């Protein structure tokens, strides 16, 4: 399983995301976004472990939750920004 951070611009957006994932049985943790991930300064993220992140992002997209960025654990164990395409 890989470790992901999904960032949001607002705590309310992150909470909506958390609720949408909870409804689908996806476990996640709501927490402050690490400073280095958030260029605009201050935000909230959902942290989760999964092998299948696309279905997770699709749940958020279906719930019209405004997404920020996605970071995932790379081969070296470090988190890196991951460009995703939901189209």
């Amino acid at each position, binding site marked *: 399983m890989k470790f992901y951070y999904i960032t949001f*611009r607002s*705590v309310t957006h992150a*909470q*909506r995301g958390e609720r949408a994932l909870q409804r689908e049985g996806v476990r996640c943790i709501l927490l402050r976004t690490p400073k280095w991930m958030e260029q*605009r*300064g*201050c*935000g909230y993220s959902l942290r989760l472990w999964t092998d299948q992140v696309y279905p997770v992002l699709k749940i958020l997209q279906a719930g019209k939750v405004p997404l920020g960025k996605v970071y995932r654990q790379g081969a070296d164990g470090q988190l890196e920004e991951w460009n995703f395409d939901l189209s």
Partner: protein
Amino acid sequence: MIYLDNGATSFHKPPQVYRAVADAMRTCGNPGRGGYREAMTAARKLFGCREQAAQLFSCSPEQVVLTNNCTHGLNIAIRSLVKPGGRVVISGFEHNAVTRPLHALKAQITAAGRDLFDWEDTLEAFEAALKKGADAAVFTHVSNVFGYILPVDQMAKLCRQYQIPFILDAAQSAGTLPLSMEQLGADFIAMPGHKGLLGPQGTGLLLCGAEGQPLLQGGTGSESRQQEMPDYLPDRLEPGTLNVPGFAGLREGLRYLNRVGTDAVYRREHDQLQRCIHGLKELGMKVFSGPHQSATVSFLPGMDCEEAAQFFADRGIALRAGLHCAPLAHESAGTLETGTVRVSFGYDCADGETYDFLRAASKLPRFSQ
């Protein structure tokens, strides 16, 4: 005390509202400002309040902006849609919370529809005014003085037809009458948290269907490097620390209403209203009643209205007299000089209280006005 001033605020709240306020004061930090337990607890209480409101009013949680009161929400909405000197159509029954912000903007105001309880007059005059063009329309759902329920579905339809953005003042209807943001298609709906929604004072909601312009700028706990306010809701319109205990209480009021349903509240209040109107008429009072009336009624007591209200207050009965911050509505009804005494029922009103009120009313000394 017999409390018949629910148009001003609901005095008796469900017990869980009081508990939630006290609990929040003990357990909540600053929402959206940290990741520690107390800050997250606060954020969850606010989000829960937004979720309950979204359920009751058919919108999404981030469309629910938390305000200090209905007036605060109306000011945001009006400043968002009306430029200085702009043209605005309002109903003939607006509160000062609408007319004063418009006056401050030196707006060109058309008050359309002055006949009480007359939907035909309201709609004809409203459409005629919209036809002449306007930057925005602002109208109340229910007159706070007379309980007149305006035909807001049709008024909203007219606004859409003439492509005029509109604001609904739901101060007297939220929690008592069905209200759907989705169905109405309003640009903004403003409401207090402390009246029909059964929350504490110092809370209000602004439902946003359009982009709002901030009245205040400041910290939001988000995008802190930016000097502009965030361009998304609800952060854009919520600078500064919110009234977390208040909204924790409001969440419980909303939860109660989602459980029992506004129809049940309306039926109970309306039963009391009918008894009250009938009783006052039997006593020979001039009573303002008609079709399309919510749980509020005004009457002329046959003496100075403030002295009459004091007479009731001295007997442990709370109601409101005077102009009710709505001189326009009184002008429409021809009571600007006398004022009226207003009785407004709440979700927990009971038969016995209405009878006690009517018994006291039968003992009113009759002075000439």
